[in-house]
């Protein structure tokens, strides 16, 4: 079998994403971890694009690599944290048990994927999806239009709920990080 472009792209992206994920977990310096995480998000956006999810790929770059990681880096640099100090560990064997539990989790998910693959055939193309794609191609409707249609019809209440959730998040952050009035007058800067 000859190596095609998409196969090579998949393996390269998968290798980079796994490597950067290890970098996030293993690196002592949180700034480096954050930068590894940015690369990981970009790799995932490439994987989304390879699976025909263009909207999500763009949102991944904008929301995750753009907004969320800037917030992370901002807080890391605001708090000016160094690496973790190698002090005595109050939880004995935390690393060992953590890795062990992780391996158990991986085995469990692997078993689930295996059973899904054999039972319902995850690789089989669903006829409904194929039919919708065919209709969309016929009527010259693009995929973002279909997703927007679904959001504002089938999922309109969850969509409105997310706006409420974001509002609650904004109010919560303001209340959490607001300085007390007394300290404002002493410091002189809000």
């Amino acid at each position, binding site marked *: 079998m000859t190596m095609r472009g998409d196969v090579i792209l998949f393996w390269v992206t998968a290798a980079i994403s796994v490597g950067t994920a290890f970098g996030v977990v293993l690196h002592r310096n949180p700034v480096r971890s954050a930068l590894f995480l940015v690369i990981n998000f970009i790799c995932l956006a490439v994987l989304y694009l390879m699976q025909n999810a263009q909207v999500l790929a763009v949102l991944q770059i904008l929301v*995750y690599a753009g907004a969320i990681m800037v917030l992370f880096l901002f*807080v890391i640099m605001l708090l000016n*944290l160094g690496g973790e100090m190698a002090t005595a560990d109050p939880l004995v064997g935390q690393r060992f048990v953590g890795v062990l539990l992780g391996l158990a989790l991986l085995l469990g998910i692997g078993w689930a994927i295996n059973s899904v693959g054999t039972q319902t055939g995850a690789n089989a193309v669903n006829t409904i999806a194929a039919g919708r794609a065919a209709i969309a191609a016929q009527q010259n409707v693009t995929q973002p239009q279909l997703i927007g249609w679904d959001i504002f019809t089938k999922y309109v209440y969850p969509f409105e709920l997310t706006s409420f959730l974001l509002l609650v998040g904004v109010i919560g952050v303001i209340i959490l990080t607001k300085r007390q009035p007394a300290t404002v007058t002493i410091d002189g800067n809000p």
Partner: protein
Amino acid sequence: MAIPSTYYLALSAILFTIGAVGVLTRKNPIVIFMCIELMLNAVNLTFITFSRSQGFDGQIFALFVMTVAAAEVAVGLGIIVSIFRQRHNIDVDEVSLLKG
């Protein structure tokens, strides 16, 4: 449609596991948050992989996961900043008492 869905699912499982191990072993809460983001992204990859064969619902779920992640990061980092103001140390082993 060349690469089977199973490969994407396996990659997602590996990324999720790495994130989970990070949450279990790291002590810096900011890094723990990043590992949670890693796990959420792995779940998004699974959603999008299934939306390839099952319609657009998976992609819309992934969109909701992104908004929830954004709100969660904002609130979580706010909590970390306010803990840092009180204690000047955010190591999760040090901040293990539910006392102000």
